[in-house]
């Protein structure tokens, strides 16, 4: 491009003029907050990536499909930004015993194709999701409901044929009338209603069940947004959502729509935000973690969400059995300097863990008895290690391996932890790298790892139980390290059967005290979400799950 001297001069004048008018506008907006709000019909552009599955709520189990589905649908309950579950389409959810539930559904709301949302929309959708032949990724969310075994036809590992289910519908799920659902659970679970805001429990219009495949391409929902048009999901490129004008729930859209642009790499998205070519991103490139606060002095956010990272100790490791094993677990936990690692390696984008759950869920307690073991104390760690060696010595020359997957960028902190152990305990420790997450998972499942494994968990619904049950209960689905303690299981059951959430949380806290004794895994830190946004938008925040509250974003 060529610039003459005159055009350059004109350009400078124009920039100066813009700057001056900019100042003027800024000065004038002092006398009324919110008055400067921009175009309410602005379509927000947001970072995302190609969803991994068709957009059926019960088949969406990853973040990029999840954020779309959450905007397209409204369930019986929804979560407010702090993670509290509030009634949405449910008029009331009542249970005398935590096992039998009567759900009253609000009448008069509609899907965006005009079909009314009734109790039947929920019952049919749930039966569809639970039936094993439909192969929905979230089908296991219905396992608490009575009759799940009959529709899920439990396959064993290694099966090549799906066994035929013996029933098409859940026997514990009864459509009473147009606005009433009766649910019977296999056993009392007081926190069951907390799950109803999760995408697996969304209602579906009848068209969805008639042709799920076509529906997954062009989903029709009842949420604050709808697909902009037929084919609004442009594969490998973007998904366009527009405001659903008929929506009347608590998450009403304050902008004209959201376009999710797909990036396979977070770096170009970050550059786009700097150039105001994209409005908001919730995934930062690693090298930006140190600079995002200075690159975006006003427009950034660093907020904890319901996810954590742990170092898991397989139950079969011979050096970690019995009394010596217990002492070693404690020693290692106390030898890890969580404060320093989160500060230096993560630039403050993780928060040192104080328990096995997350501060983003209701009932969180940072002073659970025994949680001292997570505090860094090199001298005490060394002492505990020597006590363990006195009982049964650490094999000479043995290196403690810390397994991690490199596709998630874990090397730096694993190395830091290994150094902590080397310096503070005087043992050999090193990272054991696996190229892919799936590879590490296979080894964890087959119980063949020679050492510890890194793990991470993100809650599906805001409950302490969701961090404890699926991961640590005997035989639980994601309990890969095989931890089992009947006392812990008993407290979980008591918590689930409790009459109120507070009683339940008290039991779950008690259960955590056992975990601090046994240390089946070492809590490391809580996850936090970093978000940056452009000069064109404001009111950006993230919710309990770390997902941006897209509906609240407004134009500047």
């Amino acid at each position: 491009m060529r610039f003459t001297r005159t055009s350059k001069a004109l350009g400078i004048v124009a920039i100066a003029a813009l700057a001056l008018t900019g100042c003027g506008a800024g000065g004038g907006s002092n006398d009324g907050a919110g008055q400067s709000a921009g175009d309410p019909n602005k379509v927000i552009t947001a970072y995302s990536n190609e969803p991994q599955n068709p957009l059926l709520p019960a088949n969406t189990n990853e973040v990029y499909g999840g954020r779309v589905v959450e905007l397209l649908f409204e369930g019986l309950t929804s979560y407010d930004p702090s993670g509290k579950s509030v009634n949405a389409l449910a008029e009331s959810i009542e249970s005398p015993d935590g096992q039998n539930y009567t759900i009253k559904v609000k009448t008069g709301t509609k899907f965006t194709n005009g079909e009314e949302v009734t109790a039947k929309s929920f019952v049919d959708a749930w039966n569809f999701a639970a039936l094993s032949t439909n192969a929905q990724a979230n089908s296991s969310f219905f396992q608490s409901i009575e009759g799940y075994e009959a529709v899920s036809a439990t396959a064993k590992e290694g099966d090549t044929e799906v066994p035929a289910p013996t029933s098409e519908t859940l026997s514990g799920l009864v459509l009473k009338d147009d606005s009433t659902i009766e649910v019977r659970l296999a056993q009392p679970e007081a926190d069951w209603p907390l799950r109803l805001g999760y995408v697996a429990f969304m209602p579906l219009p009848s068209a969805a069940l008639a042709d799920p495949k076509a529906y997954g391409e062009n989903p029709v929902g009842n949420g604050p947004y709808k697909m902009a048009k037929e084919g609004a999901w442009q594969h490998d490129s973007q998904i366009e959502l527009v405001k659903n004008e008929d929506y009347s729930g608590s998450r009403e859209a304050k902008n004209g729509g959201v376009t999710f642009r797909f990036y396979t790499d977070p770096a170009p998205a970050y550059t786009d935000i700097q150039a105001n070519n994209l409005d908001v991103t919730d995934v930062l490139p690693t090298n930006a973690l140190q600079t995002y606060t200075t690159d975006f002095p006003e427009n950034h956010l660093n907020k904890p969400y319901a996810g954590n990272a742990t170092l898991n100790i397989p139950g079969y490791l011979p050096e970690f059995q019995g009394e010596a094993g217990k002492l070693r677990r404690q020693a290692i936990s106390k030898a890890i300097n969580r404060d320093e690692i989160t500060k230096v390696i993560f630039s403050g984008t993780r928060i040192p863990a104080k328990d096995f759950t997350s501060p983003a869920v209701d009932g969180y307690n940072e002073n659970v008895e025994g949680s001292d073991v997570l505090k860094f104390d090199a001298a005490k760690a060394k002492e505990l290690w020597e006590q363990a060696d006195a009982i049964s010595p650490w094999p000479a020359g043995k290196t403690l391996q810390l397994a991690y997957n490199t596709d998630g960028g874990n090397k730096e902190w694993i190395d830091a932890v290994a150094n902590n152990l080397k310096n503070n305990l005087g043992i050999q420790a090193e990272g054991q790298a696996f190229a892919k997450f799936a590879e590490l998972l296979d080894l964890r499942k087959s119980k063949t790892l020679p050492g510890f494994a890194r793990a991470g968990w993100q809650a599906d619904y805001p409950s302490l139980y969701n961090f404890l049950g699926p991961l640590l209960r005997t035989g639980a689905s994601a309990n890969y390290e095989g931890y089992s303690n009947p006392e812990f299981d008993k407290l979980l059951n008591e918590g689930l059967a409790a009459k109120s959430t507070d009683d339940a949380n008290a039991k779950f806290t008690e259960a955590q005290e056992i975990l601090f004794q046994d240390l089946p895994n070492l809590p490391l830190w809580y996850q936090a979400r970093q978000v940056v946004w452009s000069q064109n938008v404001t009111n950006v925040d993230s919710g309990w799950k770390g997902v941006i509250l897209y509906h609240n974003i407004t134009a500047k």
Partner: protein
Amino acid sequence: MIQYILRRLLQVIPVFLGTTLLVYFMVFALPGDPVRALFGERPPSEAVIVAIRQQYNLDQPFFVQYGLFLKNIFTLNLGVDFTGQPISASLARVFPVTAMLAVEALAIQAVFGIAFGLVAGLRKGKLFDSTVLLASLVVIAVPVFVFGFVLQLVVGVQLGWAKPTVGSDAEWSTLVLPATSLALGSFAYVLRLTRASVIENMNADYVRTATAKGLSRPRVVVTHILRNSLIPVVTYLGASLGGLMGGAIVTEGIFNVPGVGQKLYQSILRSEGPTIVAIVSVLVLVFVIANLLVDLLYAWLDPRIRYEK
């Protein structure tokens, strides 16, 4: 001539079988169960795993899977990927974008490389020549992604003349930045190749003859020097087309171009064997056909070369 083309096309068959078998095997040998990987830490019910495995034939032994894949290729039905999308549809989406990017990059490097090389060659030893030579050395020394980031930051963010990324609207105009950064790497080679060739041809007998019989300078330069100098350049350009299409993976990443490279990268991350092999198969075809075209162009440019039988 026709026979020659046919023979070259027949060679495609073993090349195609060999590469797909190799790539398919490598994907198959990738560690980790791709179906479980779809679910992260949170395992689905076993019935779902079995159903998905069955749907994508992942429960079959390697050669059965490969055989089914070949059958699909020859019936022109590539099947669906893990998102339920027909693979043929996603190929039809990404290949035109990358082809556009590659052709634009090729055009940029050809036009500028040949022009600068010609002028530098004609003015051998002059200031322009030395400057261009030095500059091209610098360009060769700098990796492509550095140009990508610099162009993106300076032109896209600081000056704001163009959008820093491409995204959904991939057109000739929006692809200028990525195409330029992609072209810069080979541009210097084209330039140096042209220059060397021009210098050599300036002293050739036919050029002296042409000048001696009184042809105008432009005519000597264009029909005699340039045309003969283009032979090695065309070979290089043709060979680089395949490389541009396959090698755009880095550039596409920097500028978020929804092309082949991005799709391939994502498919590898998600262990989607059929998509990876389908993309590689098409890339193989592009390579082979580009090379064939180069050989044919050769004959056209240089009548001394004849393809007998």
